[in-house]
Structure formats: structure tokens, C-alpha cells
């Protein structure tokens, strides 16, 4: 019997499912339907027993719950053990991770242990004839590869935000999965929480980023206010990070984060190739720049040629008024 099931690895944080769980459920449902198989989710965390209902709404048939203090925080060796236990139980054709940091750390280890094929940070997974084929940007998005997964089991991590979760309701069954946690070789000693509740850049739907044209950290409140009005996370160019105006975790680009939001607004950013590398797969791009010849307009869907110091307050004001409607 050839394999027909899809196993998704549903991450949780503070007992809540992360968005990627619904994205991978949706991607997995399409393939399982084509194969005539089930979508099974393995959920790891602490206090996550209620996950089945939410996952069932997005096409998951069966939920395997791995609950306990060892899973309260992401720990790759523990997560990998849980996923391998689920694989042994389900015999899936495909294991889907969300390509978050935790996913990127765990998925390759699982693939190596299974001797499975692995495609990282895929933007699509589909059937081409009988073959399972993943689409994957390479060279910072300067080229797009199609990669066939030939081994009996495939592991793919799916770039956050590229799949839109779709409703496919069913009553998912839920059961506890027993996992032998491996001897702990990595111990978390301390967690330095961010000062404010921030939206993680790579998972944000809308991002507003600022560049060197904003002239200094004292002007960032204009950018933050516009971001707030749009319900957006905020990012920065490397020039800004190198100048010490903003922390590195906000950097978008080749040596920062790769983001794929629905909407990316680049404010006073010239659009150097290394910046584009991190954001050019965004669905819609808006550029605000006083130089009409700036390369950022080459990738933008909408452009406003003008002074950011005048446009940002307008944007904040108008967005607050418009989005309330």
C-alpha cells in the first residue's frame, strides 16, 4: 500500500496554536484529498488538549496531543522525538512543518533520522502527475526551484504566510500520544522577553519598514504610529540597524529576516538588492520614497513619491479612519 496520509506538526505558544498550524493544515488537506488519505496533526506544548476543535475546522481529521512540561518551550530534540513517534504511528507520505525558527531547527533533524527528502521554506507543495513537488526560492529569491520529493517519506517546511488558511470543517478526534523524551542535552537557563508585546516579523500579515531616509531614531515614532494604525509589525533596513537606530531583530533582507506578508510598506528605503532579497515575495508592496528613481519602485505595486515626514502622518490618520469602517 502506498502512503496517503499527511502529518502536520502544529506548534503552540503559551498553550495556543500558532498561525502556521492552520496554514500547514490547509496545505496538507489538499494533498490528503488527492491521495485519499487523512490529515493528522501532532500538537506539542503544555496545556494544549483543546487544540482538536480549532484544527478540525481547517481540515484535520485526527490530533495527536503531546502535552507536558518538556514541551512547554520549543526544544528541538523533544519536538523531534514527538514527531518521530507520530510518524511511526501514522506512516505519512508527507510531514509538514511551518518554517518558523522552531520548524527550521526540527524539520531537518526529523528528515535526517527518517532518511526522508527535505525541502526547506517552500512556498508551495503540490502534485505534478504522481509526483510530489515543492516550490522553493533559492539565492535569496533570485531564482525559484521546483523540487521533486522522491523518497517514500517527504518532509517540507512551509514558509509562513504563503498559504491562506481555508475552512474545511470536520470533527477531529483527539488522543494523547506517549513520547519518550530523550535525555536532556540542551537546557533553557533564561528567557529575556521583549519589552513590549510585538508581532513576530516573519508571521505578520502587514509590515511597515523604515530606512535611512528617516534620518534618525528620534523620527521612528512616525513610522511606529503608521504601523500601529495599520495593525502592522515594523521592520528596518540594514543601514538603520548598522547605525544602531533599531535592533537587529527588525532587519529585513539577506542578512536579516525573510518575510512574506500580505502587505509590505517600505518607507525611505532605497531598495538595494539585499533588502529586496528579504521582502520581494510579499504579496503587495508599497513604496514611499522621495526619489522617484529609487530601485524599490521596481518591485512595488503602489508607489508614493514624496517626503516620508509628510506622508507617514497622513497614512496613520487615514488608516485609523478608514480601517474603523
Amino acid at each position, binding site marked *: 500500500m502506498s502512503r496517503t496520509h499527511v502529518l502536520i506538526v502544529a506548534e503552540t505558544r503559551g498553550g495556543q496554536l500558532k498561525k502556521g498550524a492552520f496554514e500547514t493544515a490547509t496545505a496538507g488537506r489538499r494533498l490528503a484529498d488527492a491521495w485519499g488519505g487523512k490529515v493528522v496533526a501532532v500538537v506539542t506544548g503544555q496545556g494544549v488538549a483543546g487544540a482538536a476543535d480549532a484544527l478540525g475546522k481547517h481540515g484535520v481529521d485526527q490530533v495527536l496531543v503531546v502535552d507536558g512540561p518538556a514541551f512547554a518551550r520549543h526544544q*528541538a530534540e523533544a519536538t*523531534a522525538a514527538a514527531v518521530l513517534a507520530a510518524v511511526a504511528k501514522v506512516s505519512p507520505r508527507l510531514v509538514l512543518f511551518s518554517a518558523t*525558527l*522552531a520548524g527550521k*531547527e526540527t*524539520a*531537518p*533533524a*526529523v528528515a*535526517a*533520522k527518517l532518511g526522508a*527528502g*527535505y525541502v526547506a*521554506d517552500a512556498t508551495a507543495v503540490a502534485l505534478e502527475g504522481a509526483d510530489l*513537488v515543492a516550490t522553493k*526560492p533559492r*539565492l*535569496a529569491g533570485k*531564482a*525559484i*526551484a*521546483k523540487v*521533486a520529493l522522491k523518497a517514500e517519506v517527504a518532509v517540507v517546511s512551509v514558509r509562513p504566510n504563503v498559504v491562506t488558511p481555508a475552512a474545511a470543517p470536520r470533527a477531529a478526534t483527539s488522543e494523547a500520544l506517549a513520547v519518550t523524551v530523550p535525555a536532556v*542535552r*540542551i*537546557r*533553557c*537557563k*533564561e*528567557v*529575556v*522577553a*521583549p519589552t513590549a508585546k510585538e508581532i*513576530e516579523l516573519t508571521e505578520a*500579515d*502587514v509590515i511597515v519598514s523604515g530606512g535611512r531616509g528617516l534620518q534618525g531614531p528620534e523620527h521612528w515614532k512616525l513610522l511606529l504610529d503608521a504601523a500601529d494604525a495599520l495593525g502592522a509589525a515594523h521592520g528596518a533596513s540594514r543601514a538603520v540597524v548598522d547605525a544602531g537606530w533599531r535592533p*537587529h*531583530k527588525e532587519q529585513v533582507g539577506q*542578512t*536579516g529576516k525573510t518575510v512574506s506578508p500580505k*502587505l509590505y510598506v517600505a518607507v525611505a528605503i532605497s531598495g538595494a*538588492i*539585499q533588502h529586496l*532579497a528579504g521582502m*520581494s*515575495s510579499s*504579496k*503587495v508592496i508599497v*513604496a*514611499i520614497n522621495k526619489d522617484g528613481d529609487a530601485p524599490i*519602485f521596481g518591485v512595488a*505595486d*503602489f*508607489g*508614493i513619491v514624496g517626503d516620508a515626514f509628510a*506622508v507617514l502622518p*497622513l*497614512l496613520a490618520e*487615514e488608516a485609523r479612519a*478608514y480601517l474603523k469602517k
Partner: protein
Amino acid sequence: MDVVVCVKRVPDTEAKVRVAADGRSIDAAGIQWIMAPYDEIAVEKALQLRDAAGGGTVTVVSVGPAETSKELRTALAMGADKAVLVTAPTGAGDASATAKVLADAVRGLPADLVLFGKQATDDDDAAVGPMVAALLDRPCVAFVTSIEVAGKVATVKREIDGEVEVLEVDLPAVLTAQKGLAEPRLPGLKGIMAAKKKPLEEKPLAATPSPTETRSLSLPPGRAACRRLEPTREGVRTLLKALREERGVL
């Protein structure tokens, strides 16, 4: 303290990409090759750790074409002690095959730590480090921005979900380097001269099957022309309306 660093030869990040005639790989004509930027960071950190420990070795390992000796000599000129090149004209294959070959190469080397770049800037997989760790059964922490070693334990930091974690890892371990871990030094003339005499061992690749196959490589589709709007209240209103009603992104 003995550290192994895996380094890959990749196209310069500024390189203009064209697809080769086979339709599956990049056209190498006119491309400048460099040591992958995160691997350079890992080499620098390895040198710092060895020197802070007051002794030990840094060995750099690569799988790649014979020309990779250039990038390995650069690492030797930075201060690494020894290099191993598994020669493979077109690489070992996919991440899984590469990891198998590297794991075999690393197994015989002294290594309290094996360092990788967080990702090679050509394949962008961020996979080979965690795979080698799994094959060698060593603990792995990816994307670290700080490493301190005391005895048989490394204390590392990394950012995850907007928080910074401080983790203790039992050695021997595998870590992958995120930006911020170290600033790579430029090799000096003395280093470059010394590198010429340092050992660079070459060995042939033992064929390893890849469980994936790249079917095609193409350039990303161009975007539609940019719609220009005025820097006025009216322009901003038009923008917001288009974003919500036409594009459905707000």
C-alpha cells in the same frame, strides 16, 4: 578546544542570476564565488573560541569543486589550522546528501563543537547543520548569536519568537551561526603567507544518493508595473481603498 567549521563556496550575494542551459542550475559564467557569509562568521567565532581556550584546533571542512580550495585557503589565512575538501565537481547533491558526506568527514576529526552557517546563501535551506547533528547524534542549537564555553558546556543565546533564549548545551554539540555572533576578520598578509603552508587535505566524494531532485530552476515572475499615487491625503486614501478593496490585503 577543538572546533570544526563547515564552509560552503557560494555565488557572491551581488551576483546576477541566470539559469543554465540544463534548466535546473545557475549559469556559472561571470559569477564570483565567495565563502558563504554566515560560514565566515562561524569561522571567526571558532578562531575566537580556540584562542580564548588557550589552545586547540580549528578545522574547516567543505564539499565542493576543486576551486573551493580558494575559500578554504581564505579560512586558513584567517587563522584556521587545517582544511579538508571533499571534492565533488557539482556538489554532493541535496541537503540530505551533503549532510551525510559532511557527517562522515567530521566523524574522524576532533570536535568539541561543530559550527555551521545558519544557511548557505545559495540553497537557503538552513538544513545541513541540524541534519549533521542528527546523523552524529549531537545536540544542536540553530541561529545562535553568542557562544561561551566553560568546561564541557556551551552557553549560547538565540532569538526566537521575539524573545532571547539563553541555553546551556552539553558538548560535543553542533551550532549554527546567526549574524551578530562575530565580525569576520580580514586575513592579513602574514596570514595569507602562512596559509600556503597549512595542510589542505583533498579526498574524493563517495557517491551518496539524494532523496530530492531539482526539476527546474527559473527566474521569479516580474511584478506588474508600479501604480504611482500622489503624496497627498487624497493619494493616501486612494491607496488604502485599493489595498482593501482591490487587493484584499487590509
